[in-house]
């Protein structure tokens, strides 16, 4: 939680820094940064669903797909302005998400996870069938938006847009966590029956969590499509959903910092491995199985040492720093 001043100042500084530094980055690094930012936004939603409400979704990528396709459709086929189109895409995704969240009324744990797995398969199939919306196997292009008179065609500008959305998402995330809804999420996760008797409308809370998570997914999906300037259904497959799950778990459940760090992890680790290989050879191909294996090992070893995720490791470092600057509060974390 960004509870104390240290964190707040740090966060503002980080955002300002990103906004400035990004403008001087090359295409490649900017692409990675944009991807991290969009993934982080999407992960915040999943993290609220999984980390805070305790419901596993193996359909997050499919929901991103709903957002990506519907925003592209709204903008290109219906001619809606970009900003309302993105938000509307988020809402559409949210409605779809809540429909697929209905089984949470009765299902728990792994069984609910499997219902979402079914959602992933069904949505993916629906994408394949809906050529008018998705372009079928060929995908469809998604233009970068013009918003409030500003064109975001340029990648550097587009990054600022993604960053703005991510910051808004993060602020909303924190605010939800510290208010009634956030507590209801946690209560439902920890003990839903007791929560119910304490006045928490469990079903509504679960559906709200689904709606919220998928809204994030929808908006992030729309931005993701615009970042790639192209939406293909393959980008929203089961393995991507699992990748998001991995992202959130490695990042740290129920923590905003976790969503961000996890996104960075998932995007950067393979790229860093590539960069290392490219330093010695011009061919990452022969090393591909090794790189894949190393990636798997990093995941395993990392979780061995920090099963609570990057956020916890970060927290520890932060605490250490605080203690050493002497400003730290002695609260238990």
């Amino acid at each position, binding site marked *: 939680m960004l509870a104390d001043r240290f964190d707040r100042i740090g966060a503002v500084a980080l955002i300002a820094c990103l906004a400035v530094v990004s403008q001087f980055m*090359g*295409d*490649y690094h900017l*692409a*990675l940064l944009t*991807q991290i930012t969009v993934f982080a936004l999407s992960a915040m939603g999943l993290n609220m669903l999984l980390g805070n409400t305790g419901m596993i979704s193996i359909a997050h990528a499919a929901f991103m797909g709903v957002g990506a396709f519907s925003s592209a459709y709204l903008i290109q086929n219906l001619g809606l302005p970009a900003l309302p189109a993105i938000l509307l895409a988020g809402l559409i995704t949210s409605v779809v998400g809540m429909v697929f969240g209905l089984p949470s009324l009765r299902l728990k744990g792994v069984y609910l996870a499997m219902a979402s797995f079914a959602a992933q398969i069904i949505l993916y*199939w629906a994408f*394949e069938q809906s050529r008018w919306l998705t372009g*079928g*196997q*060929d*995908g469809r*292009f998604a233009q970068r938006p013009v918003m409030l008179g500003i064109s975001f065609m340029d990648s550097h500008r587009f990054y600022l847009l993604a960053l703005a959305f991510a910051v808004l998402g993060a602020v909303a995330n924190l605010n939800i966590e510290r208010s009634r809804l956030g507590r209801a999420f946690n209560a439902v996760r920890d003990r839903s029956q007791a929560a119910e008797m304490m006045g928490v409308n469990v079903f509504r809370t679960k559906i709200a969590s689904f709606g919220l998570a998928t809204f994030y997914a929808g908006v992030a999906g729309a931005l*993701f499509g615009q970042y*790639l*300037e*192209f939406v*293909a*259904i*393959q*980008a929203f497959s089961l*393995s991507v959903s699992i990748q998001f799950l991995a992202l959130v778990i490695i990042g740290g459940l129920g923590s905003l910092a976790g969503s961000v760090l996890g996104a960075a992890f998932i995007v950067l680790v*393979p*790229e860093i491995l*590539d960069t290392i290989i*490219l330093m010695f050879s*011009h*061919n*990452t*191909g022969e*090393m*591909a*199985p090794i*790189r*894949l294996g190393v990636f798997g090992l990093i995941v395993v070893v990392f979780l061995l040492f920090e099963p609570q995720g990057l956020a916890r490791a970060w927290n520890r470092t932060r605490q250490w720093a605080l203690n050493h600057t002497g400003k730290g509060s002695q609260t238990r974390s």
Partner: protein
Amino acid sequence: QAEIVLGGISNRTAPTSDSGIPHMDGVLAAWKWINANGGIDGEKVKVVEIECGYDVPKTVAAFKRLAGQYKVPLVHGFGTPDSIAVIPFSTRTKTIYMPVSYAKEMVDPKKAPYYFMTNADYSTAGRSAAQFVKHKGGNLALIYNPGGFGEAPIADIKDEAKKDGVAIVAEENIGYVPTDAVQQVLKFKKAGAKYIWMGNTDSAMAVLAKDLKKQGDNAKIIGNMYAGTEAFIKNAGPDAEGHYTIYGSVPYGTIDTPAMKAIEASGYADKTNTHFIRGWAQAMLAAEAMRMLKKAGKPINGPNLKWAFEQMKNYSPGGLVPPITFTPTDHRASMVVPVFQVQNGKWVKVWDNTLPR
């Protein structure tokens, strides 16, 4: 000594890497061979390969790295969605992209001006299959993986079949990793199918061939170029006999050109299949364009390469794939789509077909 640096985007880890690996291996082996034989007028070529595991965002990032940091004029690419995703960036950075996916989207110079490939696109190949059925006489059933390249030519096949008066008697689906194809075979039997178009990979085609045999159905499969490969023959064993394919390249060892000899000598023997050969052909095609630029005294860059490609008329790289022609308005590499059949455990060309442009 100067060096020309090209890019490569491969899939060696994700599903479909069974074709991704030999393809990129073919590209690299060909460049090695070209370099050993004088390079591009003395200049050596280096390929920076980034493995992207069939992942769309990773491919986009890798492309940006190649085009932005390495400033390559040309990238050897891979599959359908990832290659389509690169189109805007390829256009913007004027970088040539050579995928091994032959989807229609990428052969239209208006949409993808910098895309060049070595083979007929999926739809042309599919149309040829329909014409083959007309030629043999019989009806056609379709089986394909819903989604993916398998489905890509289906609409065009239906269209062609209608034109040719070939009846489509059944339409079935089959996944990439099928447990069996009995259900589909039962359907085909019921429908009395004679020829079956298969849009999938070799494993699925092998399963279908085995189950056809087991259920005593004599229908013949016509595989697309990812289904009817050497691996199909290996996996289906004796059950492969008699089935057809629209082969993407000349089968290994069936012609006697320097390129094929080099392939045989390359030490990749076990990996030598259509994917490898098409990769090889792709590199040779790129090399030819570069040589044309050298001859014309133009520097090697994206726009110039595009110009060179578009000058090509009936160029068959080492005889490995049917002759290739590009024009500024038409990037369909070839309209020549021969049909092969398994005879005595080998792919044998049984029908030559050239479609009108």
